[in-house]
């Protein structure tokens, strides 16, 4: 069952086309990752999906119904977690979650149970009487998530929920999202951190300049590109002759040296790690770490657009 569907969504800001015939389809039970660099149109597309922003052309359907600003029956089943922390400084952790939950659940008894569950879910039990100003950045992000999911919506939209969060809190947030998915929620997750998207998303769409440039599972996306292996060697110096020799190794697409780091990209089904090690040994080049990686979504993005995801 399709939960969210956008068809040919166009949004213009004067001459700037923020969304250029964007079509997305989010199926039930997916963790749908919307990946793109800053300014690619991720937040704009979410705002259009949520009817927070009017669009020039196209259609948005959620749960099979057309989404409009007054589609309150649809809104009832959506939970949103904004990019910035959107909580009240005047209310405690418990009061904040209770307030946002009360926008969806009028029954006090039922709400109390839901709020308690949300607090347990984000592990803020010991901070329930704390005011947001007393919380660290990571805890605030968790509170922000709790406020968005306390009413247990069928569709959860998370707009870069891990921005400026420490690694420990980030892992907790990502684990939480996986748990929500296990509980049956469909999740739309936007980020410009490819590692996160790779880690949790079951379906990924990469967008740039308001257009979909690639979509599929992470495996499908990686299969789209010619690169199969990336070898990185930390070394102090390497001559241009040695670089030329490395580029002649079988299946090597590119070999680049910058910032005391040599990166060799090879074609699919090519394994050059042993050959590179032999080369360094024969040439008596000293090196620090050497490691081989499979292509990342950044490599996918780089190969398709010619630029880095974090540019």
């Amino acid at each position, binding site marked *: 069952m399709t939960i969210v569907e956008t068809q040919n969504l166009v949004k213009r800001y004067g001459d700037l086309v923020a969304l250029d015939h964007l079509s997305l389809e989010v199926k039930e039970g997916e963790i749908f990752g919307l990946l793109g660099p800053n300014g690619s149109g991720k937040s704009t597309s979410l705002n259009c999906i949520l009817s927070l922003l009017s669009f020039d052309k196209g259609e948005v359907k959620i749960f099979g119904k057309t989404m409009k600003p007054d589609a309150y029956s649809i809104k009832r089943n959506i939970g949103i977690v*904004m990019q910035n*922390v959107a909580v009240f400084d*005047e209310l405690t952790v418990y009061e904040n979650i209770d*307030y946002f939950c009360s926008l*969806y659940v009028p029954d006090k008894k039922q709400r109390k149970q839901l709020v308690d569950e949300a607090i347990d879910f984000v592990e803020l039990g010991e901070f329930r009487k704390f005011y947001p100003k007393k919380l660290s950045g990571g805890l605030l992000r968790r509170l922000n998530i709790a406020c*968005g999911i306390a009413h247990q919506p069928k569709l959860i939209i998370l707009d870069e929920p891990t921005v400026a969060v420490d690694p420990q809190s980030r892992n907790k947030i990502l684990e939480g999202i996986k748990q929500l998915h296990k509980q049956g929620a469909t999740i739309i997750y936007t980020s410009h951190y490819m590692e996160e998207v790779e880690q949790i998303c079951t379906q990924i769409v990469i967008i740039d300049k308001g257009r979909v440039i690639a979509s599929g599972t992470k495996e499908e996306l990686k299969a789209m590109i010619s690169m199969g292996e990336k070898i990185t060697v930390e070394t102090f110096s390497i001559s241009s002759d040695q670089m030329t020799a490395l580029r002649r190794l079988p299946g090597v697409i590119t070999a680049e040296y910058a910032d005391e780091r040599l990166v060799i990209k090879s074609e699919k089904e090519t394994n050059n790690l042993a050959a590179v090690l032999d080369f360094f040994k024969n040439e008596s080049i000293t090196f620090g770490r050497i490691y081989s990686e499979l292509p990342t979504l950044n490599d996918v993005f780089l190969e398709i657009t010619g630029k880095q995801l974090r540019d």
Partner: protein
Amino acid sequence: MPIFKLCLKIFRKNWSSIGVFLVIFVSLSCIFAFSYSQSSLSKGFTQERAKVALISKEKTPLTEGFRMALAKNADFVTLPDQTEKMQDALFFRKVTYILVIPKGFTKDALNDGTMKMEKRVVPGSAENAYIDSIVRQYWHLATVYAAHEPNLSETQIADHVKRDLSTSTPVVMHDQHAASADSNFITGYFNFVAYGLTIVMIVGIAAVFIVLNRQDINRRIICSPIHSISVNLQIFLAIIIFALFCWTGFSGLGIFLNLKNQITAPIGYYLLNSVVFTLCLSSISYLIGNLVSNRQALSAIANVIGLGSAFLSGAFVPQELMNQTVLKIASFTPTYWYVTANNRIAGLGAGNWAETKSILNDMAIVLAFAVAFLILSLVIGKRRRMYA
């Protein structure tokens, strides 16, 4: 009604910042009330008693009668008939009036009206005027009786004069502004309220809008299944409750401080005027809440608007004493019209429709300000949401 409850919670949380203004306002109001209660003591008239030394060198029925007549308004001090002692007594203010009646004075006065009394006074002493008046009155009456009733003995003349001086005419003053002191206090208080109410309303209401207008919080509310009309109604209801609470508090304080005075001024008009002004302040606060996003700046803005408009409009200084140009500038603020209406209410005669109409006109202008600010706020609010 989650948004309504939230607004009330934010109002409650803001009481600490509002409390500072309230303490200042209540303190100033108490000082204000105390100063009025002190000044109201001088409403009546009490004649001062002079310290008089009466040295009479003869003892006749008329001089004795004169002594008794003088005793009503004088405290007698005994002095020897020595010039130096008399001068000392005047210098050290033991007495302010010394009257020496020479021997044969009564006879001379009754025969040819000659009054050769010796008088020494402290210069510029107000109470001496009363003594002069009694002296003139008593002996003038005595000479009149002696001239027109030559058969009367001195004792009879003294009795007649005593009887005449004992009569008095009750005087009742009927003034349409009889309770002006009371109405002055209540007018002054309600004018002064313009300052306190403006600051409290702006700090209270605008703070709620600053919170609710935060982009991401606003988006969360828009994304919720609560109808936008319901959201607006809940906010509106919370503002009304807050405004009503503030109005009741400020008006109640005024009435309480004025309790010991008679409320003869048309208090209903003052209350109606302040209700209209409170509505206007709600609109202004809504506008400021839509314009200002920094909470720290809010107190400063509230102070500038509250104090500035109160000063310009004559809430602290009577409008009669203010420069016309300043008042013209002030007429672009609702506070000016509110204060003007209060001043008109203070001078309101019984059932004068022309005066009442002027008051209602002033209130209508304040109401027009309220509508204008509300429209402006709604337009700005809509633009903010569009560009959010």
